[in-house]
């Protein structure tokens, strides 16, 4: 137990901040994922064959390739790609991107592919009559989307989105390979310096269990809130 003391003697404070880092990366990745989903869901539902195949390519590739490989792509390729873009604008120095951004971005792209599928499924299971009725009643586009379609879509999407959240939360453990100090990386460091890997990795498992348990409680509450009218 001494190993978990806060301060210089133990690893308590380090692990606490690492847990906050895991939460921060997961939330950022989830938001980036939503942005990707907002971009690709319309493509997947598009009747245009070309746009449709772009949307399909995104979800198929990301969901068919291991997360670790995607992370390596961005970890090793991220700064190269940004430097290439910068060189077009005449900036030729070395640019290093922050591990937090690389991590959240790569996990975000992965979680975006799952979110896209969830939103597509939710939109498709809204009754067709709702779209038609909204159009017939002559609502403007803002009300049509934000007041009629979106609330119905969210109700259907939230149970599946909480699954996506669980996947995203667990995937963040993989960005420890890039050196970002989240739970896994901190446990690795602590295990290395105290030679007590069994304790620290088990403790990491407990932290993850706590995170998944607590977030499930919150999400269940959200689920009941959004399905009030049913």
């Amino acid at each position, binding site marked *: 137990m001494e190993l978990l003391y806060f301060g210089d003697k133990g690893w308590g404070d380090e692990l606490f901040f690492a847990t906050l880092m895991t939460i921060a990366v997961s939330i950022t990745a989830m938001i980036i994922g939503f942005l990707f989903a907002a971009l690709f869901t319309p493509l997947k539902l598009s009747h245009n064959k070309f746009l449709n195949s772009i949307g399909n390519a995104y979800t*198929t*590739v990301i*969901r*068919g*390739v*291991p*997360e*670790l*490989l995607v992370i*390596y*792509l961005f*970890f*090793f*390729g991220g700064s*190269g790609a940004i430097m290439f873009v910068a060189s077009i604008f005449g900036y030729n120095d070395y640019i290093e991107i922050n591990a937090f951004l690389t991590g959240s971005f790569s996990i975000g792209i992965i979680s975006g592919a799952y979110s896209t599928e969830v939103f597509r499924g939710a939109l498709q299971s809204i009754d067709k009559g709702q779209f038609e009725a909204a159009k017939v009643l002559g609502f403007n586009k803002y009300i049509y989307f934000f007041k009629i379609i979106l609330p119905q879509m969210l109700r259907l999407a939230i149970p599946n989105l909480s699954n996506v959240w*669980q996947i995203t939360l*667990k*995937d963040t*453990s*993989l960005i*420890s*390979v890039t050196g970002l100090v989240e739970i*896994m990386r901190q*446990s*690795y460091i602590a*295990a290395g310096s105290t*030679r*007590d*890997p*069994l*304790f620290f*990795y*088990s403790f*990491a*498992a407990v932290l*993850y*269990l706590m995170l*998944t*348990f607590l977030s499930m409680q919150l999400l269940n509450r959200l689920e009941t809130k959004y399905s009030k009218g049913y």
Partner: protein
Amino acid sequence: MDFELMINSFPKLLNATLITLKLLSVSLILGLFIGLGFAILRMNNNKLINKFAYGYSYIFRGTPLLVQIFIIYFGLGQIEYLRTTFLWVVLKEPYWCAIIAFSLNTGAYTSEILRSAFQTIKPGYLEAGRSLGIPSKIIFTKIQIPIAIKQSLPAYGNEIILMLKGTSLASTVTLMDLTGVAKYIISTTFKPVEVFIVAGGIYLFMTFIIHNVIKYLEKKYGFQT
């Protein structure tokens, strides 16, 4: 685009795919037995046994696979007693540690899939079996299991694909599987995009095959929603 690198790395990556496939198939087979065992325990009426099986699946589904591999590979070696038993022969090999972690992980997911499949079997089938005087063991093996397999095919297909992606974590415990070799080539050549296209392509090809085999089986065994 460095096409030469892509062509040169292809045989190396293909070779590493064999390790990926070996890891996948061994852990799926072991995981299926573990999953079936725990699914049966989950349906037990004894509360303690039921809780135990639920706890197992909850822990393995609630923590990242990476943590599980690290506990087994780095953690278990720390227990002095284990080092003296024959288990140490298995646990000092990263290959077997990965297999143990993968099997336990996929076993947890499989047990949930099978449990829900068993629960969707209409009671009428079992009643019909019982009223015909069929012994309960035979009802289980000849009626419940075939129906459960049929019902769980789509979900199990997803689990196989998730596990295929999961095997990439073997590279974190020094195994040179497809992802491990891909990372090695990336870090020596600094050409991530080219290697990603080749390695990702191989993974996508495997996913494609698995997806279609499951689809064929679903059709053959007449999956009903």
